[in-house]
């Protein structure tokens, strides 16, 4: 190969590599494009106001109604229950791991927590429907076979490692000298954790929580299996509900012909889901960057 052809080959390889990197941007454009295209077609037939503020969601019934609020409420309800489990438990684990645990305990406990995150969500769905719900029913007689409570609790368990691991990172990033200052003033580990570490790590911890909310909203299989398919505007965790993700699964499993209004609803719901999680992800990233010692 002459120097000239080699140089040319080098240039072409570099361009090809950048094309690979650029593909990831095409994926984002593809997501937005597909969702926007079908959503626009949907909104041409249903007014955005009726979609976003309506209180009845019956796109698959003869008497169609396209008010998305019931499935948004279902999503928020399950995510709230999940966060009520994941945030206190995750934060406690994180403080324990960063302030109390010996290096040996950390070495075992962190991978063990990761196990929880590695279990496929369809398996968690099985737990929620066939193990946790029957068990809860021995305590709560009014609990329906499908409900928001069991999938919420199980989802909390699934998200716990995310909160714990990111919060632990945030706490570990707090300079040692700050703690030592507190200890020198006679603080216990808990007092140092609450008075010094937590405030200093707060933006990192908030980033973890926001990311966890995003994960909870987008989680599909647990709720598709265990929460039911009954869109209803309620805060009662004991009755069947439907989440946005479950609705998409429900329509996908049925035989709704492509190109119909019913078919387009899943893209409109998907768009809402995407906008919601995207906003949360960007918010989380913004918070993380304010973290001391974090990425710029």
């Amino acid at each position, binding site marked *: 190969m002459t120097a000239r052809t080699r140089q040319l080959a080098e240039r072409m390889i*570099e361009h090809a590599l950048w094309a690979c990197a650029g*593909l990831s941007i095409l994926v984002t454009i593809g997501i937005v494009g597909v969702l926007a295209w079908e959503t626009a077609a949907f909104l041409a037939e249903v007014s955005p106001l009726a979609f976003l503020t309506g209180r009845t969601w019956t796109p698959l019934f003869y008497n169609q109604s396209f008010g998305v609020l019931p499935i948004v409420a279902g999503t928020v309800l399950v995510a709230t229950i999940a966060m009520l489990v994941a945030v206190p*438990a995750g934060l406690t684990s994180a403080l324990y791991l960063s302030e109390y645990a010996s290096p040996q305990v950390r070495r075992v406990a962190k991978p063990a927590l990761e196990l929880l995150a590695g279990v496929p969500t*369809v398996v968690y769905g099985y737990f929620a429907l066939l193990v946790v719900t029957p068990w809860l029913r021995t305590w709560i007689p009014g609990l329906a076979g499908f409900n928001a409570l069991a999938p919420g609790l199980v989802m909390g368990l699934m998200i716990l490692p995310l909160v714990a691991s990111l919060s632990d990172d945030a706490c570990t990033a707090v300079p040692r000298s700050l703690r030592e200052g507190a200890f020198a003033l006679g603080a216990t580990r808990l007092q140092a954790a609450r008075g010094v570490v937590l405030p200093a790590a707060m933006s990192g911890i908030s980033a973890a929580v926001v990311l966890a909310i995003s994960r909870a909203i987008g989680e599909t299989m647990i709720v598709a299996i265990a929460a039911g398919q009954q869109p209803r505007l309620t805060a009662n965790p004991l009755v069947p509900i439907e989440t946005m*993700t479950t609705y998409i699964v429900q329509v996908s499993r049925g035989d709704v012909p*492509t190109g119909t209004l019913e078919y387009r609803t899943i893209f409109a719901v998907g768009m809402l889901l995407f906008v919601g999680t995207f906003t949360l992800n960007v918010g989380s*990233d913004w918070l993380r960057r304010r973290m001391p010692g974090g990425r710029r």
Partner: protein
Amino acid sequence: MTRAAWMDRAFHALGLAVLAVALSALMFLLADVWRDGASRLSWAFVTGYPSRQASTAGLLPAVAGSLWLVVLAAAMAMPVGVGAAIALEEYAGRRRWARLVEINIANLAAVPSIIYGLLGLGLFVQALQLERTLIAGAATLALLMLPVVILTAREALKAVPLAQREAALALGSTKWQTIWHHVLPTAMPGLLTGLILAVSRVIGETAPLIVIGALTYVPFVPDGPSSPFTALPIQIFAWISRPGTAFRANAAAAILLLLGVLLVTNGIAIGVRDRAARRRVA
């Protein structure tokens, strides 16, 4: 003991208790699956065809489908993902462009998997008219695993010592010769670990495959990329959703198989990483 010291001890105990409760909840749930499914798990179950009757239903089409999906998805995602990682790590000269790609990848990694299903449905199934086939499913999963592959590949490339690159360049290698002959071989264990981790995340993915239209009853083994398909997690979902308890044992047994596969793949990933780490020390 003062009140503060007492509180300190109490929180220590609380932290341990939370960890113990979370892990024992997982153990308890796994034990339940084992009780329900272990008796159903047999060679005939893994190599049998689906059936309307729970006791004779088998998993072969689902296992074959998952295998096809994972191999095809990895074959698509790996070259592109490693290529992107090389561009970002080795050629990141164009700062602003690289930063944009980085932010984009971080965001993609946090997009819910069901959204990738909608992308696959709109792009591969509808626009490219691939229909509800293995190749459409695999392409969707490839996009889903791309951010993970890129992020892990970057870590693997970062771990290659700069001196190794400088030595090759000093001997007159071009940039690409340096990467191809020196950086990539050294980074290979890390790249493989990343691939296996990405694969084990994708094996359990259910939602995107449902959205692009995986079938739940497939009485044949897929014969090529354009065949309709089912997959292990789809089969589990289908069995869980059936009323009655007969199929519950099947679902539990299939879950045991899925978790077993994940245990093996993750074990391999850890093994590869450890061996590479030991060789580097020696």
